[in-house]
């Protein structure tokens, strides 16, 4: 009785956690470089609409995902032009990006409302399908994007903590002046981080529309972009912790769906609140210690050497 319930919950957590994870990894890279993109919601929407429309037009989901990644990357480069090159206020620029994403995705997606698509092929190793409990759920019956989610987290961790590039990105996020003194170019590193983050954000959005919902509707991300910003804090800017964070929040969503399906007496709206309140509670529990792990230069504008 409880085993299938838990496995079902886990399966649901992975389903909705995957796109959260990709977006969290992207935003982690961006924030590690000292930039906070409050407009992530817009990036996700652009990714979702571009991914869906390209899939619907070409009939090839992988093309849709690639296009979404590129669109996300481009959108973040535009954001970078504002906050890095033009040194504009990051929060206001982020909100502007959010509005841009609302509008652009509505425009891109409008012709495809109600379109039917074929998502990415799913694949489950046959030896895993043998287990009865597994068979009853979607566990391990995943598309490529889902299969690559955890390897991607490891890749991002490796890139940030074990490469010359990642060291530069983290240095810029902590202190652009020191990175500059070390001969790194803070602007270029921030653009690179933003591009990577944008590609991951675009993929995350497309995963929502192309493989999870298989439809397009306006504002379909429903605040996930903001949840992700909370998740990045929750995971203390660490790509590996982001896996746990995304699973936890995906799990909260899955739990909510399951309880709804079982006709639970708890109102769905109260359940829907739980991730937001949970995030707040966790931030509260950390209190002061959180500050030690936030990139010191986050949100600040670097004006060069003098």
């Amino acid at each position, binding site marked *: 009785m409880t085993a299938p319930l838990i496995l079902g919950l886990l399966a649901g957590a992975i389903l909705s956690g995957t796109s959260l994870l990709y977006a969290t990894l992207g935003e982690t890279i961006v924030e590690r470089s000292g930039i906070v993109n409050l407009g992530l919601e817009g990036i996700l929407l652009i990714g979702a609409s571009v991914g869906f429309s390209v899939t619907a037009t070409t009939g090839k989901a992988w093309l849709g995902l690639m296009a979404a990644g590129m669109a996300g990357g481009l959108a973040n480069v*535009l954001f970078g032009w*504002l906050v890095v090159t033009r040194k504009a206020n990051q929060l206001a620029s982020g909100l502007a990006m959010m509005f841009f994403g609302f*509008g*652009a995705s509505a425009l891109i997606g409008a012709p495809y409302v109600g379109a039917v698509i074929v998502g990415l092929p799913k694949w489950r190793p046959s030896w895993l399908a043998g287990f009865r409990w597994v068979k009853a759920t979607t566990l391990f019956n995943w598309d490529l994007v889902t299969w690559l989610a955890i390897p991607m987290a490891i890749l991002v961790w490796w890139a940030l903590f074990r490469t010359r590039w990642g060291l530069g990105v983290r240095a810029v996020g902590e202190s652009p002046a020191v990175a500059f003194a070390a001969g790194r170019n803070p602007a270029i590193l921030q653009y690179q981080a933003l591009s990577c983050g944008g590609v991951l954000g675009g993929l995350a959005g497309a995963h929502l529309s192309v493989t999870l919902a298989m439809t397009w509707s306006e504002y379909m991300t429903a605040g996930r972009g*903001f949840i992700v910003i909370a998740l990045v804090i929750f995971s203390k800017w660490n790509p590996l912790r982001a896996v746990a964070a995304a699973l936890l929040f995906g799990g909260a969503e899955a739990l909510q769906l399951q309880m709804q399906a079982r006709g639970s007496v708890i109102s769905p709206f109260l359940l829907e*609140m739980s991730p*937001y309140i949970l*995030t707040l509670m966790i931030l509260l529990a950390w209190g*002061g210690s959180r500050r030690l792990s936030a990139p010191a230069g986050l949100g600040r504008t670097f004006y060069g050497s003098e």
Partner: protein
Amino acid sequence: MPERGLTAVLRSSTALRKTARSCGIGGAALMMFAAILLVAGKDPLRAYMDTFHYTLANTYGFSELLVRMTPLLLAAVAVALPARLGLINVGGEGQLYMGAFMASAGAFLLPKAPGWILLPFVALMGFLGGAIWAAIPGILRAGKLVNETVATLLLNYVAPLIVSYFVFGPWRAAENSAYPQSSPFPDAALLPSFFNTRIHAGLLIALAALLAYWLILEKTRWGVDMRAIGGNAEAAQRLGIPVPTWIVTALAVGGGFAGLAGMGEAMGIAGRLRQDLSPGYGFSGFLIAWLAGGRALGIVLMAFLFAIITSAGDTLQMTQGVPYAVVNILLAMILFIVLASRSAGGTSK
């Protein structure tokens, strides 16, 4: 005196330059948006003509602009007031919803009360709703526990769900309409409207709030304290200004104004509590306050501009069959140009 004449000329020329610059920004944004509409196979020229026709060139349309401005003004003050302390309130949306929710609770609590009791009571409840919703991040920030930007942002998503819970649940309209909304408020709780339009007393409240904002900041010692905290919180604290108290107060009062915006939408426009109370007035308020640099007059102008843009969204949807949300592109274009053209290290913090 000749010098005075000269400065007057200089001043008017900077004003001219400013106006020219604003027009340039607006024009460029309109052209970029037109290009996007063209690519999407729409007729931008007709869209702009229609918008002009339905808003500025027509009394009813103009009154609608004022109606739209009402919540925007309040939401902008809700951001601008804490901003003077260096606090970033991106939670106007949630505070607005909580204001509407608490005001509705007030109206349903005293259904039989006469208007002269009920209206002030409902307004107070609306203010309190927003104030409480903003005081929570305020307390967390004052205790150095959670950054107020994150906390206000997260609470944005909770408040509409509370409204949804009541709209779908305890307060659901008896007539069982397909539209999720509460039953109508008692007549005594409705804000009076003027000139046979939808302009309601909320506009007066909004203007009064704006005036109060200006007076407090410019004319009282509280304004000095608040600006000191915004300028250098560490020094302010060391000089004995009770910074934590101010943080909570400023956020709460700001949130209260956003709550009044929600109250106005519920009591002045809809006549009931609805799930889709606000199309993002809270976020628009942030941008208005930011674009206006916190100046009271600037807030009025920017709110007016935003009202026109949102009206354009309606027009587009009606006449061109473009989703309403598409107008956000125009908004974003304006913001992009302003953000990019402000000199580095300008008015932003």
